[in-house]
């Protein structure tokens, strides 16, 4: 589709999206689960007239507001800004299909903001019933936002049989909608439990901290336990080609899962320890827990993104923004108005490979991947791209263009390998 490409070859648009997205999902799942913890702890404190716990809840609410509004809300907008730049065709397609879902999510976002601000500001002013009701509204609004966004994200991976743009609900409730919703709800409880633990670990009131860490540990353990069947349910509902990618055909996913497993193990052991010997969870352990949570969440998102390859919208738009129904042999550059004719090799790389490969950067560097291949070898490889590596889209273009790209890559190889 006809958009310009924002070309920063040493960094790569994908790296930018991933960086913002990992921070965002970490905070935003905390934002969903954190409301539940706030209401739980406040209710407990009020019920038992437990003053230290009450004070803790109020401080936690202050931290929560700062973290979720400043970091969570803005990184959410940040993802959208980044995908508009890096994946304009995919973004536009999603916006036009789901604009009213997004608009509904915007209303929920507004309710979230207002309710959490009012919640914090009325802590010592309103009756317990009213104040808890405000917390409850926050919880409902934030979980429903997750509900809304979940439909859009899962649609990108498993659109099901939906074709027409006008069909919104069948696209929304797609095959992985419910498994993903369950999994994300578990992750929300888990991550926010880790934050409760961390804030408690910094509290001076040790007996209170021990109590809190025990409760949070129990919550995390339940969430981890429920996440396991959710993962299998998720996998079961993936279409076969995606599943083979996840089960080992994609080196990216293999690496990503190699991070997820130890992170999950650390969290399970930590949660058991928190239940059994909460006093042992000090500041370092709490920080390790948060780090493991970040890695777990990050590798889940990374895996999900990688599993969608070579598509940005499964089955219709490739990761490099090209339509999947475009004829493969037709000359590419002459039908790409934003390309310039002076450097065909560079332009072909920019419009077709750069979406997933950097040039001399860290993330999936094409120079590394093509090391030792000369122009003819590259030309042969490019013609087989999709057949050899199903996570790459097929090359679109005439045989001349294929040669242009191969020669250009080989030249980069030579100039890039010189220090």
């Amino acid at each position, binding site marked *: 589709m006809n*958009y310009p490409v924002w070309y920063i070859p040493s960094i790569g648009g994908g790296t*930018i999206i991933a960086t913002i997205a990992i921070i965002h999902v970490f905070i935003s799942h905390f934002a969903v689960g954190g409301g539940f913890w706030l209401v739980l702890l406040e209710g407990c404190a009020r019920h038992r007239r437990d003053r230290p716990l009450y004070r803790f809840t109020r401080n936690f609410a202050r931290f929560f507001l700062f973290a979720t*509004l400043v970091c969570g809300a803005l990184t959410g907008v940040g993802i959208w800004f980044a995908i508009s730049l890096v994946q304009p065709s995919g973004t536009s397609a999603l*916006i*036009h299909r789901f604009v009213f879902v997004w608009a509904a999510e915007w209303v929920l976002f507004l309710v979230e903001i207002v309710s959490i601000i009012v919640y914090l500001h009325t802590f010592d002013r309103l*009756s317990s019933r009213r104040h808890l009701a405000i917390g409850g509204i926050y919880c409902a609004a934030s979980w429903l936002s997750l509900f809304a966004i979940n439909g859009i994200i899962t649609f990108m991976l498993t659109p099901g049989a939906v074709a027409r743009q006008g069909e919104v609900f069948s696209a929304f409730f797609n095959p992985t909608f419910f498994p993903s919703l369950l999994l994300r709800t578990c992750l929300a409880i888990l991550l926010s439990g880790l934050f409760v633990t961390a804030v408690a670990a910094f509290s001076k009131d040790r007996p209170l901290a021990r109590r809190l860490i025990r409760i949070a540990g129990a919550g995390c353990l339940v969430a981890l336990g429920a996440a396991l069947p959710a993962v299998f349910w998720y996998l079961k509902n993936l279409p076969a080609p995606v599943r083979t990618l996840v089960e080992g055909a994609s080196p990216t996913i293999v690496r990503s899962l190699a991070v997820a497993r130890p992170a999950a193990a650390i969290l399970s052991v930590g949660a058991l320890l928190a239940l059994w010997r909460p006093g042992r969870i000090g500041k370092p352990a709490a920080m390790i827990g948060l780090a493991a949570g970040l890695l777990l969440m990050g590798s889940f998102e990374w895996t999900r993104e990688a599993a969608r390859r070579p598509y940005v919208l499964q089955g219709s738009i490739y990761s490099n923004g090209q339509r999947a129904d475009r004829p493969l042999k037709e000359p590419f550059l002459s039908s790409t108005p934003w390309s310039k004719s002076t450097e065909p090799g560079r332009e072909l790389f920019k419009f077709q490979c750069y979406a997933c490969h950097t040039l001399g950067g860290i993330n999936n560097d094409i120079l590394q991947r093509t090391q030792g291949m000369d122009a003819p070898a590259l030309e042969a490889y490019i013609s087989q791209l999709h057949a050899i590596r199903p996570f790459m889209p097929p090359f679109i273009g005439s045989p001349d263009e294929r040669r242009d790209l191969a020669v250009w890559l080989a030249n980069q190889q030579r100039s890039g390998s010189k220090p």
Partner: protein
Amino acid sequence: MNVLVPTAEALPAGWPLLQGLLLLVFPLHLLAMNGLLGTTAVVLLIRRRNRPLDRALAPRLTASLPILMALTINLGVASLLFSQTLYGQFFYPAAILMGRYWLAIIPLLMTAYAGLYMLDADLAVFRSRPLPALCLILALLLTVPFFFTNQQTTMLDLTHWRAYFSEDGGSLLNLKDPTVWPRYLHFMVAAMAVGGLFTALTGRRLGRRNPPLGAYAERIGLRLFSRMTLLQFGIGILFLWQLPQPVRWFILGGSLTGGLLLVAASGIALAMLACAAQRLPGLCTVLLVMQVFVMSGLREVVRHASLAGQLLPANMPVLWQNGALLLFATVLLAGVAVLVWLTRQAMRPPATAVISETESEDDRAMRL
């Protein structure tokens, strides 16, 4: 049709409806943004002057800033959503051309937002020397709309798009366009005026408990408001002057809507000046809200005139999503009801009347 313009996607509802939604949320975004930016400037001014009344007023105003920021962001999201739906084929290329700056908006806003919270929390670092932090925050808040102005004008100026062929790294601002600076100034001066009005309204509220403080805030606020509104006439004319002739003609009589909106805007501006002189901040606010809606309408007229021949709403395919639309309307209604209830809770007098001086805050809370 310019070949660089991507094919437009089918609209999910008729053009007038989506355009109406944009014209509903964008003025609200502007009001929140102007309040935020202008009030931050007011806080900086009075912190510098630092007389006793200034010292009393500054924290009251500062307390509103993080909330205004949250609302600005939220309403901005809605505006961008409808804007991308209506004008995506112009919107995305314009953002990509200035990708670095476009993305920089996020860290700039995050820094400013965090700074506002820290100022409001009255952290020790800021208490002694609030000015450097305030200057930084204000500078950040002034930079973000400059980038937005660049993006929104790049959308309208397709000749500028060709610059991409010599620079595709996303660092193309639209500085050669003569409308950029007047347009930006037009928004910024409006923001200062709204900041003044917000200060005056805060004064009204404070005046119930502390009449001298209230009267002071109202006076300085309304003075800023009327000066900036007066200045706005000059900047508005400059902006109009810099618009390309065919576009200008749309406003000066070429289109009935454009002409009527301009007449309405001038009339409202005069009425606002009169109300400010009569010390009527409430009426000023009503007029101001009307003015922002009228101006947003005028902005759409300029957009359509600038994109004449490229943007053809009547020819765009529409695939009505009735079910989803109904869902949105329901959520919106329910959301508004909940928001009203929440606001009323925030306004309730504290249920914790102080019984004895010795009772701690926590004990009082426990009685609830």
